[in-house]
């Protein structure tokens, strides 16, 4: 297995080509024939009483004056893109509709009681540290199969289906349930890595470390300058750190490591790649001050903006999230995670880039068709362009960046993507499928990174948690092949 060229699945290739298309411009039409959507046979929304006649401009038969309720996660992207672009676009299509908008942080805490009582909104942006348990919702039939959305004509060109206007891999990233169907629209093309201030690095003559040995040398150098080499926020964002561990595990052992974890395969967490990755990151954790475990993400990010932290694990929303607190001379840039061993299956350049930031349509909403239509509007070029302008982040919509100048961080993401080529680290679905397992991973990540348990114990405890999930009859199991 070692030293063989990386296996590239067709999907990863397509996804990565798709991203290039996003950054380069509109010429992505050649991808249009690849349809890989999951289910396909599910009937249209059930709330038939409120439907109107369908047409190419109203493919779901939305009743023109039916009110629409939208709940947006008001995090790194804020919610202006919804209130100032997406919702007005919906209203333009359905002038008689009133939109109830809510921008909140605690999606799970706020909406769970509503799902329990059946009084649900029509569109939910399910994201953030307190997100809804997607797997449980799918298991309970609470989410709508989005196949009709992807099969519908697009807003910009009625002759093109929605699925042909978005980056390949988007639909698959939102698959769930058994049999797998697309329940989630992941709207934002997100790259994950170690973020730093390129101005600071240039000044100090530093480059981001490419191996963990270099990482330690770098850490000593940064420490000597009084700068914390690496930090994350343990109080509410320990998942930023476990992403790094999972990405490293995939780099060592290939994407099947993560796929096995998603599938709750026997001993998936006990795999040596996971242990090596955890051990490598735990070493870096030693350079962190203990206090980071008690801080929240924006506190740590603000410290980075103040030049106190060199490398910070995050995704490509970071630049927009910190825009207000970033000094003018601070230039965001991103680097891939360092290689762990010389025998890693994926090269240093490999990155995790995936469609993320999920949007779901609750199946029991009063205007579920309107929910689908809202997503369709979101996938128009205008909506996507507005989103990129407001959030400095790319959407999955192809060719929506025409005429936009990329911010330093976004340019860096594009460069990292180009360097990665076909080496794409896959996403992790268990985070959304099995909330309990995910919660346990957060706890154990903090314990590992702040030196309370060894990598070996980390793997053992996670394996126990995964087995517990697997043996829990009340949890609906899901699988993925790619």
């Amino acid at each position, binding site marked *: 297995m070692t030293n063989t060229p990386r296996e590239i699945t067709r999907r990863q290739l397509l996804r990565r080509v798709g991203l290039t298309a996003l950054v380069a411009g509109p010429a992505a039409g050649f991808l249009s024939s690849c349809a890989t959507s999951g289910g396909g046979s599910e009937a249209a929304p059930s709330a038939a009483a409120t439907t109107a006649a369908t047409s190419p401009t109203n493919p779901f038969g939305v009743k023109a004056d039916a009110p629409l309720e939208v709940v947006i996660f008001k995090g790194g992207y804020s919610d202006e893109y919804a209130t100032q672009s997406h919702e007005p676009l919906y209203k333009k299509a359905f002038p008689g509709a009133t939109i109830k908008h809510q921008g909140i942080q605690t999606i799970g805490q706020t909406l769970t009681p509503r799902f329990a009582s059946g009084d649900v909104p029509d569109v939910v942006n399910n994201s953030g540290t307190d997100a809804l348990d997607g797997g449980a919702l799918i298991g309970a039939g609470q989410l709508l199969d989005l196949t009709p959305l992807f099969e519908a004509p697009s807003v910009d060109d009625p002759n093109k289906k929605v699925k042909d206007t978005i980056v390949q891999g988007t639909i698959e990233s939102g698959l769930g349930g058994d049999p797998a169907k697309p329940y989630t629209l992941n709207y934002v093309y997100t790259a994950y890595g170690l973020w730093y201030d390129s101005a600071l690095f240039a000044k100090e003559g530093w480059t981001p470390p490419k191996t963990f040995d270099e990482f330690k040398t770098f850490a000593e150098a940064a420490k000597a300058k009084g700068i914390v080499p690496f930090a994350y926020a343990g109080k509410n964002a320990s998942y930023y750190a476990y992403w790094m561990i999972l990405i490293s595990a995939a780099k060592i052992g290939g994407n099947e490591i993560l796929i096995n974890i998603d599938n709750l395969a026997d001993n998936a967490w006990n795999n040596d790649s996971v242990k090596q990755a955890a051990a490598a990151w735990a070493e870096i954790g030693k350079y962190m001050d203990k206090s980071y475990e008690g801080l929240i993400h924006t506190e740590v990010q603000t410290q980075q903006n103040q030049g106190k932290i060199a490398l910070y694990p995050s995704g490509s929303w970071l630049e927009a999230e910190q825009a207000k607190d970033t000094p003018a001379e601070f230039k965001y840039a991103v680097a891939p995670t360092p290689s762990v061993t010389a025998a890693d299956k994926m090269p240093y350049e490999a990155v995790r880039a995936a469609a993320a930031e999920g949007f779901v349509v609750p199946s029991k909403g009063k205007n579920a068709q309107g929910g689908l239509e809202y997503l369709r509007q979101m996938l128009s070029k205008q909506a996507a362009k507005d989103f990129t302008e407001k959030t400095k982040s790319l959407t999955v919509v192809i060719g929506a960046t025409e005429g936009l100048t990329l911010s330093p961080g976004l340019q860096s993401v594009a460069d990292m993507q180009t360097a990665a080529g076909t080496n794409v680290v896959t996403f992790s679905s268990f985070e959304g499928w099995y*909330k309990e397992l995910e919660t346990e991973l957060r706890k154990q990540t903090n314990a590992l990174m702040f030196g309370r348990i060894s990598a070996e114990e980390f793997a053992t405890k996670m394996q126990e948690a995964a087995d517990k999930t697997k043996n829990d009859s009340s949890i609906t199991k899901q699988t993925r092949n790619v």
Partner: protein
Amino acid sequence: MRHGKLTPPVLRRYGFILAFLILPVALYIVFFVSPNLQAVQLAFTNSRGISPTFDYVGFENFTKLFEDGVFWAAVRHHGVILLAMPLIALFIALFFSFLLNLGGGQSNGRMTGVWGSPFYKVVFFFPQVLAVAIVGVLFQAVLRPDKDGILNSALGLVGIDPIGWLIDPNLALWTIIGVAVWQAVGFYVVLFSAGMASVPKEIFEAAALDGAGRFTLFFRVTIPLIWNTVQVGWVYLCIAAFDCFALVQVLSVDRGGPDNSTTVLPLEIWRQAFTYYKFGYSSAMGVALVFMVLTFAALTLRVTRRERIEF
């Protein structure tokens, strides 16, 4: 007043009893008794809350509970909080109210509090008027683990390195207990001051004349004299200690961390129900707890009943 036959006065009497009881009992049964009974039923199902269908699974939830380390950690922490929080708060409150009411020694033959006691009584009460969630958010800033935290800044002035109040697994629970004590003390200072005010001063003065030292005065005279008040306070503090959800949810690392070192039952019951949608399992936790609580309550009642009910 006893009546043997169903004369009009007797009917009126029963009518009155019924009229007075019907509303409180109905309300209590609908919103208190029935949810608890339903919880017993739910505890034997795999109900997910977000889906209408569920199956009866017998004792499966309870057998799972026995293997659930987090549940037992929560039970243990609850025990610690229930014992420590009221005791510490009561002791501090008794001590302060003693100082404020009797600590000034005698003046003109009367026992007095230390100078400035009305001021202290007002200030000490402040935390109690802040809702507990406000206290939690306030203490986020106080207890920040780095040198920017208020407490650590203050300690830094005297050369003590920052302490990870909420991030050290051995310390975090005690920090949260400390915050709860901080909030509670003032109310009980005022309550016990009230208790002491109602005891005839001559008793203290006589004791003082007999040469009782302050120690004796505090432990042998004052506390026994206001024992009734202490019991009321204790019962209410235990009720408050039971509901330590807000402080833990707002203050702790990752809601109950680090390493489950601060998690408490309401947090786990809430998390199981409203994060994982496991209404069945969540209810089983509650039911299992009822048995533990009833044991505890039986003890409480034994202590309080003697004095308060069978007056």
